[in-house]
């Protein structure tokens, strides 16, 4: 299909799937995109495309800044906000010839696991259960995932703080990749929890994800947490040493299975998808090894202390003074000056954001700091050490100078395979209907398998597999996300293993 026809079809799909609410700002049929795609098509025809994504429509999560379209973060407080600048990732994509396919819906500021906490209404997955009830698209990058799943774009950018790209990928049957922390620039990505926030990529296959990744995986001096060119080349040469470069190419993989992930709450269909995937990999000649990540149990709690703490700090800037929506009436109800922006923040933020701000403000308060924030940081370090103990390669940033394989961990594994989420997507009605609404803790439970890789900054991908069940004929019911986690910097291996498993039917 020609680039132009593909783009036209995406735009048409944006219109026909408008009820799924994947976009906050969609493309106009008469927009500039047509010229851009035509130019890219011409370049491709002449054999001089700017990149592999030249002329492709790429959707951008609405917490990533764009100069031309609003950036709302799905929040009331930024409802009409347009950023004066492009995020570095948007700049990279446009330089590579890609066309912004619009801004996708999300949980406000990225806080949520089902993309129902949006000022612009919840996102619906195109998947339905047997009773034709709409299912959760996952969150917080649910808009990006649904846009990809329903061909409203070629690929999409999301952000992943504790699983926000991988969980929607698992729930919508798409690929969701969260690279190592620090590889993709965060300049222009609206912070939720800086130490965890990672730009992620959603696509219908791993190849398209890799194409986008190659465009945005570049050093950016404007992001102080971005990996320096020196560290990048150090990691590269470390992984280029013969014994690591040969993995998958000529030597079989050692695949780790974290036993702690086999929790009793694991849904049977998910457990089946997991074990079938492992069986498939063994059949391909790779070896499977049980490994222990003992701190896993604490990781989720640590995450829900750290992320809200950073969020409460990051979101302090939204006061309606310099930008953003200001509450119409007096801001303090004539109260003392202590309530400077009470109404602006009170009406601007949604309930989940407020909950996390209060949580974070508490865990940073003088009396709670030691018991919560500091403790959670310790847990975070333990989680990281857990991973380092099981991987064959070392955390390359922690052991400077070890360019070559100094004392590799021979019993270590190359990659971990585990579920992305403990259960299939729930019904949206169950999430929204306040009478039977699950507590926020239930939603937090969805992140239990994705949070550890976030805390350790590791690359992870969720790929869809389908297990056909003799008792059910619906092909969709057996769809599950399988997560592949690698050592820091081992992003390419994670993508390759994802490619092996993606869209397998067992």
């Amino acid at each position: 299909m020609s680039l132009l026809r593909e783009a036209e079809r995406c735009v048409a799909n944006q219109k026909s799937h408008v009820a799924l609410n994947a976009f906050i700002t969609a493309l106009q049929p008469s927009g500039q995109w047509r010229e851009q795609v035509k130019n890219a098509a011409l370049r491709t025809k002449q054999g001089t495309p700017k990149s592999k994504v030249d002329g492709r429509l790429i959707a951008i999560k609405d917490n990533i800044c764009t100069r031309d379209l609003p950036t709302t973060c799905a929040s009331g407080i930024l409802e009409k906000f347009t950023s004066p600048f492009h995020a570095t990732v948007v700049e990279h994509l446009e330089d590579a010839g890609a066309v912004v396919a619009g801004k996708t819906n999300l949980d406000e500021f990225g806080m949520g696991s089902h993309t129902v906490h949006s000022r612009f209404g919840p996102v619906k997955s195109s998947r339905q259960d047997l009773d034709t009830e709409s299912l959760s698209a996952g969150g917080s990058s649910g808009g990006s995932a649904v846009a990809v799943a329903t061909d409203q774009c070629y690929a999409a950018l999301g952000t992943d703080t504790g699983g926000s790209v991988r969980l929607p990928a698992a729930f919508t049957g798409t690929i969701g990749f969260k690279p190592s922390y620090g590889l993709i620039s965060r300049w222009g990505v609206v912070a939720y929890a800086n130490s965890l926030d990672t730009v992620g990529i959603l696509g219908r296959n791993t190849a398209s994800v890799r194409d986008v990744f190659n465009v945005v995986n570049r050093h950016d001096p404007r992001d102080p947490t971005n990996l320096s060119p020196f560290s990048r080349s150090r990691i590269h040469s470390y992984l280029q040493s013969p014994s690591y470069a040969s993995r998958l190419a000529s030597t079989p993989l050692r695949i780790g299975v974290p036993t702690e992930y086999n929790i009793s709450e694991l849904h049977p269909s998910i457990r089946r998808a997991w074990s079938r995937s492992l069986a498939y990999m063994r059949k391909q000649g790779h070896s499977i090894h049980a490994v222990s990540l003992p701190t896993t149990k604490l990781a989720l709690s640590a995450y829900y202390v750290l992320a809200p703490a950073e969020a409460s700090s990051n979101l302090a800037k939204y006061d309606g003074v310099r930008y953003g929506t200001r509450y119409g009436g007096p801001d303090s109800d004539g109260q003392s000056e202590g309530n400077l922006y009470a109404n602006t923040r009170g009406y601007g933020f949604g309930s989940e954001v407020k909950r996390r701000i209060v949580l974070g403000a508490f865990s940073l308060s003088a009396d709670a700091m030691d018991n919560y924030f500091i403790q959670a940081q310790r847990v975070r370090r333990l989680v990281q050490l857990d991973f380092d103990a099981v991987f064959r390669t070392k955390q390359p940033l922690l052991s400077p100078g070890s360019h070559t394989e100094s004392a590799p961990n021979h019993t270590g594994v190359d990659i971990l395979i585990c579920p992305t989420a403990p259960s299939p997507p729930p019904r949206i009605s169950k999430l929204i209907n306040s009478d039977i609404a699950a507590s926020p803790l239930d939603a937090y439970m969805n992140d239990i398998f994705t949070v550890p890789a976030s805390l350790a900054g590791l690359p992870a991908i969720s790929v869809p597999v389908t297990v056909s069940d003799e008792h059910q004929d619906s092909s969709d019911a057996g769809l599950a996300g399988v997560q592949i986690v690698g050592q820091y910097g081992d992003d390419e291996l994670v993508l390759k293993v994802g490619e092996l498993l993606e869209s397998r039917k067992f």
Partner: protein
Amino acid sequence: MLRPWLRQSSRAARALTCPQCRQPYSSTYNSLSSTLSQSGRYLQTSTTESQERVPLRKQLKQNAKALKAEKRQRREDEEASRQKWELTVGIEIHAQLNTKHKLFSRAPTSSTDLPNANIALFDLAFPGSQPEFQVPTLLPALRAAIALNCDIQPVSRFDRKHYFYQDQPAGYQITQYYEPFARNGHVDLFGHDGVAPEDGDHVRIGIKQVQLEQDTAKSQEYPPSTQLLDFNRVSHPLIEIITMPQIHTPATAAACVRKIQAILQSCSAVTTGMELGGLRADVNVSIRQRGDTASAHQYGGIGGLGQRTEIKNLSSFKAVEDAIIAEKNRQIAILESGGVVEGETRGWTIGSTETRKLRGKEGEVDYRYMPDPDLPPLIIGADLVSELAKTLPTSSDKLIGLLTGKEYGLSIDDAKPLVELEDGARLEYYQDVVDILRDLQQDQDPKSRGGLGRVAGNWVLHELGGLLTKADLPWDAERVPASSMAQIIDHLQRKRITGPTAKQVLAMVFDGDSRAIPQLLEEESLLLRPLSREEYTALAEAAISQNPQMVEQIRTKNQFGKLGWFVGQMMRMGEKGRVEAPKADAILRELIFKESP
């Protein structure tokens, strides 16, 4: 106690009854005076008359006496309470660093430009913007910390201090709370720095830490409901210097702030001082009974202290001293009446006599300090520190020691201004004058050469300084070149010109006479042509004959002070610039006492 009150009333009464005063208001005067005389009883008692009768001179004397007594009383009270209560003060000083860029963006630091002209995205906390630490801002910060004798920390970190205010765009200030870049310094205070006499001649105040942080925006209030914000100042790099609670007198606290400002200025760490808002101080004040070490509070690792209060945002040395005195007295009054001092934040208005409560403990902000997750640790190499330490200008303490030492022999009162004036420019000029002068005087005996430093100090500081003050001109080293100054002093030392001539020549050069000194002296025939003994005798006799009764007084009452008057007469009568005072004096004594029996 009655006197001030009486004086006040008499003044008020006079203003209303004085006929000259009321002329322009004669039409309204009657009604005004009638209402006043009805309501103000003291007007009718008319203390004015008795007051008016006291001669002015006597009254002034009485007033001065009363004031003196009052002061003495206050001093005695002070001393008594000082004996009983010990004051403890710690100071936090915020100083704007002398840098080109803001702390975390490349926006310029100039805050004199049009409002809101110098701001980057991060300075306004735009969503998605990130900090970019400006490495050069570290240089003045390090110079300051080294000059304050701190240990520079190889690794330090940035933290966020949260509070909501419109001058704080991010909702937090980035500072170094947990791991500051400098610790364990000290500043030495001497008598000449203005420490309180009871603190002795030398006090060393510990510096707990120095940290880098952001300044806030400027807000301007236009009552009733308008606030204008200028973000030019936001994120200007600051250092906060926190002293140990080791200060025990208000005067020493002020001296400490003054000294720290001088140190910061001498190493060019800051651009402006307190007077221009470049430096602000908060003081922590607590009181405990002397000898009582059981108090529960501890600050900066020093235990056994009383409950402290913090007085924020003091913007002058006087405010520091006055606010501490007021707060000390307030706390003592509370404790003496059996009360309890509350830990709270207080404010001070210039010219007032009491600190005022800003917020109590219950209203205290929990800053929820959190390590900034965007900023990597600050790693400072030992090589940078030692390089900066090497290039740091000599400390004023060291310079003063040198100037008051044997080599220059200056008094402390001369050495101090020399070091402090014009950022060291005056000292540099002085050094040039001394060097040239010593060169010119090489042929002289060592003893007279030894005093050259002191002589030069007098001319540079007092004679040249006097001319500058009189003309109300700023310092300019080229106005009287150092070589000209040295030549004038050289001629004077060699007695080729008299003192008054030297001053006259200096004034001529100061006013723009650009002739070389020898040429000028020649052309204006100012070189001393010594008078003969006969000429001196003639002059002296002439002077004596004009005032025989004064001569008598000198003879009979030994009023030698009056000799000076005769010397002056001789100089006036003699040819300009030729009468040398010592010689005139000698002749006078000879003549006056020769004839005495």
